[in-house]
């Protein structure tokens, strides 16, 4: 369960995520999603409470600004997304669904790097990882900066979560 308050579609806690990153992520989602789902997902206000099982593809970016990006799919959304993305049916509980979530976030991550570059920011990405949960709460609510971007689409609901990492200087022991 998320305890973040959400005054608008981009919910933040602590210091905000750099606006260029949010902008790049939104643009990347629009471009990538419409490439294989034919229509753009619609941004909606972030819901504080998400019920039920979810699966997330997670990837980290290191560069001018370091952050973690998660694409979190609800149980009822994930099989619809998988069907369109892969072209075949994948049950939510299967290992293939984990592969799909990892691949999905990997594909959008490539676009995010290109979009960041257009905005004058350099970054490289990690390999994707996958997490499951019911409900899914990956990032602590305090500490790093967080932005939640919730969407609805014909495949169902999902949300993106950005968590900014501290700078290397801030991570040094004793600081």
């Amino acid at each position, binding site marked *: 369960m998320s305890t973040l308050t959400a005054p608008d579609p981009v919910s933040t806690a602590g210091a905000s995520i750099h606006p260029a990153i949010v902008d790049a992520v939104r643009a990347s989602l629009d471009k*990538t999603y419409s*490439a*294989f789902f034919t229509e753009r997902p619609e941004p909606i206000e972030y819901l504080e409470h998400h019920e039920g099982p979810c699966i997330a593809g997670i990837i980290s970016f290191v560069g001018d600004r370091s952050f973690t990006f998660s694409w979190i799919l609800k149980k009822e959304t994930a099989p619809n997304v998988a069907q369109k*993305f*892969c*072209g*075949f049916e*994948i049950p939510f509980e299967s*290992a*293939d669904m984990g*592969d*799909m979530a*990892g*691949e999905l976030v*990997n*594909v*959008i*991550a*490539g*676009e995010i*790097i*290109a979009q960041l*570059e257009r905005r004058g920011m350099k970054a490289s*990405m990690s*390999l994707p990882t996958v997490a499951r949960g019911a409900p899914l709460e990956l990032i602590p609510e305090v500490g790093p900066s967080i932005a939640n971007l919730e969407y609805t689409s014909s495949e169902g609901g999902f949300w993106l979560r950005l968590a900014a990492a501290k700078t290397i200087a801030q991570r040094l022991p004793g600081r």
Partner: protein
Amino acid sequence: MKVKALVVDDSGIMRKMVMKTVTEAKFCEFEFVEAEDGQVALDKLKAADFDIVFVDWNMPNMTGVDFVREARKHEKANGIDAIPMVMVTSEKTMGKIQEALDEAGADGFISKPFTVEELQVKLKKHVEKAQVLRVRKNRLTAAPAAAAPASGGWLGKIFS
């Protein structure tokens, strides 16, 4: 005639997607062999006779770029024809992609997500090259048999 393709990706679902989409592009008939990382792929490549490789860029242990570089070294050291190697990537930065292709010796790339129509355009020349290589290999395999004397002739009797 079947073209033998090696599909390298740490994601099982991505390997399935590549095989499905390449098949749907209807270039020719393929025989696919899968490898889950670069090192496994390299071992398979050294052990068998492939006509084309589809290799993921971003993999643990050995990246796709490292795999292509090693595979090219193996071809060169053993006097083997260079087979088409196509990178499958979610990278979108063209400069970075081209630099890696040139440096490693890959022939081309396809960007994820891809459609059947895109593959039909992007893979055409690579699959055609793979087909030519397969025909040449089949001829070389068939040549000794063709050169062998017919069993019913006088030479056949001598050989038997």
